[in-house]
């Protein structure tokens, strides 16, 4: 198991490093259309061939990984923070605040996410650069994705509320706010960390789903979502198996995250 974790860490590190160094490693700019060579097979010039617009797939995969791997953790951090504030305070303070937080959480969980994202995306200003659009997409994912984590965090905070050390702090005359920041939050760290690592692959997949609907990251910026859209043409996949590269990478990264997460849980 430990070996598997080390391998996973290595794979993730390699993918992160390659995507961070995309400017150096990528053989071509991600948006450059080599119109004389659309749908080209892998070659020395184009290691994973070109897409239907003649863009180098390998370069797009590197830049796409950068987008997905940098912004998915950012969105996960945003949603975990939301979960910590809402779930943590609800679990610790209880009473009317807890009831309100639970109602809000249930409401967010019952919302049809996809339609909500479509609506919010449609309401945004049109003249935003592709980079701004990708930040907006992931911010939306982060802002809307805190609810399920908040439930887990609330349960954790509730159990801490009646723990001996909290009771002792209260008996010692500590202020509620101080107890929350000094006693509760640090002890919620393992739960929050687990929720963060669960959210990362979830957001990567959510962006991929939006990309499949044509609503994720705007062209010409690549992301795993819009790279996966090529797989819709199954006959092309059959004759050009290298089209599966983004899928393999996505599966590998998500699996590595899961292995690391399960390792962390067992450690805890």
């Amino acid at each position, binding site marked *: 198991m430990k070996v598997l974790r080390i391998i996973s860490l290595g794979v993730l590190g390699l993918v992160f490093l390659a995507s961070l160094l995309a400017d150096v490693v990528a053989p071509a700019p991600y948006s450059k259309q080599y119109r004389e060579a659309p749908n080209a097979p892998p070659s020395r010039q184009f290691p994973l061939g070109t897409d239907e617009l003649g863009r180098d797939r390998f370069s797009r995969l590197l830049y796409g990984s950068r987008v997905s791997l940098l912004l998915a953790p950012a969105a996960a951090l945003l949603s975990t923070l939301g979960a910590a504030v809402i779930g943590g305070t609800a679990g610790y303070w209880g009473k009317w605040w807890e009831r309100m937080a639970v109602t809000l959480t249930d409401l967010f969980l019952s919302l049809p996410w996809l339609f909500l994202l479509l609506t919010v995306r449609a309401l945004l200003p*049109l003249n935003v650069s592709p980079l701004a659009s990708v930040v907006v997409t992931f911010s939306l994912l982060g802002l809307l994705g805190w609810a399920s984590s908040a439930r887990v965090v609330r349960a954790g905070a509730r159990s801490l509320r009646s723990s001996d050390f909290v009771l002792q702090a209260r008996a010692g005359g500590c202020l509620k706010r101080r107890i929350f920041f000094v006693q509760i939050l640090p002890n919620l760290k393992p739960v929050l960390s687990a929720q963060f690592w669960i959210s990362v692959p979830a957001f990567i997949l959510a962006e991929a789903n939006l990309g499949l609907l044509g609503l994720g990251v*705007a062209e010409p910026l690549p992301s795993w979502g819009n790279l996966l859209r090529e797989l819709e043409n199954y006959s092309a996949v059959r004759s050009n198996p290298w089209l599966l590269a983004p899928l393999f990478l996505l599966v590998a990264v998500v699996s590595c995250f899961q292995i690391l997460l399960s390792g962390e849980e067992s450690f805890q």
Partner: protein
Amino acid sequence: MKRSIQLLVFCSGLVGSILLAQSGNELRFCIRSEPKTFNPVLVDDESSETIRYLTGGVLIRVNRLTQELESELALSWKVADGGRKITFKLREGILFSDGTPFAADDVAYTMQLLMDPKVNSPTADSFRSGSGVVKASMVGTHGVSIAFPAPIAGLERLFDQVAILSSRSPRKEMAVLGPFMVSEYKPGSQILLQRNPHYWKRDEKGKRLPYLDSVRLEIQQNRETELLRFERGQLHLINNLDAILFDRLATESPSAARDAGPSLESEQMWFNQVSSSPIPDYKKAWFRSMNFRRAISEAVNREDLCRMVYMGHATPAVGPIPPANRFWFNQVLKPHSYDVSGALRRLEKEEFRLQQGTLLDREGHSVEFSLITNSGNKSRERMATMVQQDLKQIGIRLNVVTLDFPSLIERISRNFNYEACLLGLVNADLDPSSQMNVWLSSASNHQWNPNQKAPETTWEAEIDRLMQAQASSVDPRKRKACFDKVQQIVWEEAPFIYLVTKNSLAAISPQLKNVTPVPLRPQTYWNVERLCFVENLAANR
């Protein structure tokens, strides 16, 4: 256990074979959605239109191959009073599918029903020429005369859409004069049309048409599934195939893939010129400049769009009328040429300047705008991305935004909160009168600046005048001259930047004979009464 499974497989194979044998002379293809109505007078969707075409009998039919008018239930016709009146001489001895005889009073009844304001028939809109009543009067038992309050351009062509109903049949609109009649309808699944035993047409050898026994229309939205079913032999036709799927089919079964050449469908982009729209004034000034629009048009490489997005199954578009519309297309016009330096020269005329790879207007604003299109349409998304790179060459930054269709419609037709849009246009009718709602400045579909109280530019005023002139004349040459001029103005002013004209692509089973795909709807089954299968060809001969 293993034996039971084998037996089950054998039985299901046997049942399948029996079903296939039973449906040996049955044509199968898909419609995209549930038909809204079986009443031909109320048709306003594509699926209902398909059923009307297959079941309805009309007085005059536009031959989809020659694009000429042909007599059907009317032996002859005559337009009089400058397009205000049309008189038909009808065929005798014709019966509706339920055996009720066809006579002049059926035509009068159909016209009365069609024009009844309470019925609110979409087909009737083309016949509404002015205030007043449409009068249909019988001329003997087999003649009918229809008078309109004002002249109607291309009047006789409009009767291609009018399926005649029986005034006497107890089956009402289900009694038909076309080659097939609705026999079974399973909502959400399929519609079975059976051969009309009383259909009047016969082939050259006197054999009663249609050759097919039935047509089964399956309701299927997913085009991938449709193609898969076609490849398995479960369907015989696919109309209007997407270029990507067509290319796939052409690789896998070349004999089934049929490209009928340029269709009546084009893809175009336009700029928002609505004066009250919530976009900055300096951008409105760009979009209202003819030189700016023409520069954009000349900076787009249409040949590349055709080659890469449509795999060569498209041609650079010229204007509102594609070459497939033989009579109305203005032969003099050619697509705007791809000329980057020419585009920059045009922009210089409007005091734009290129500075470190960025185009700036006279006030120093960098030229950047967004182009919206509907999400999920891969061809449009690819086109937009290619236009994005083309415009980068002249220093313009284009932001491509894909929106779900309702949001897009909201922006282009209600709040006008957009800058440029890329969409397609289908010319369902050959006659330019059907495009009045696009070209008149007061029209709601005048996309770049709809619902104008008075034309805001001189060239729009000129288009209004020419469109009114062609619509009020019955002289085809005069109408053609007017509409040629409209096409010329649109070409010069580029309110719509026409990008590509798509080819009419179809999938046709090699088992099916007498199929001649054409660009006009319905592309593959326009001569449905003459379609037959190879195994039944000898019997039909």
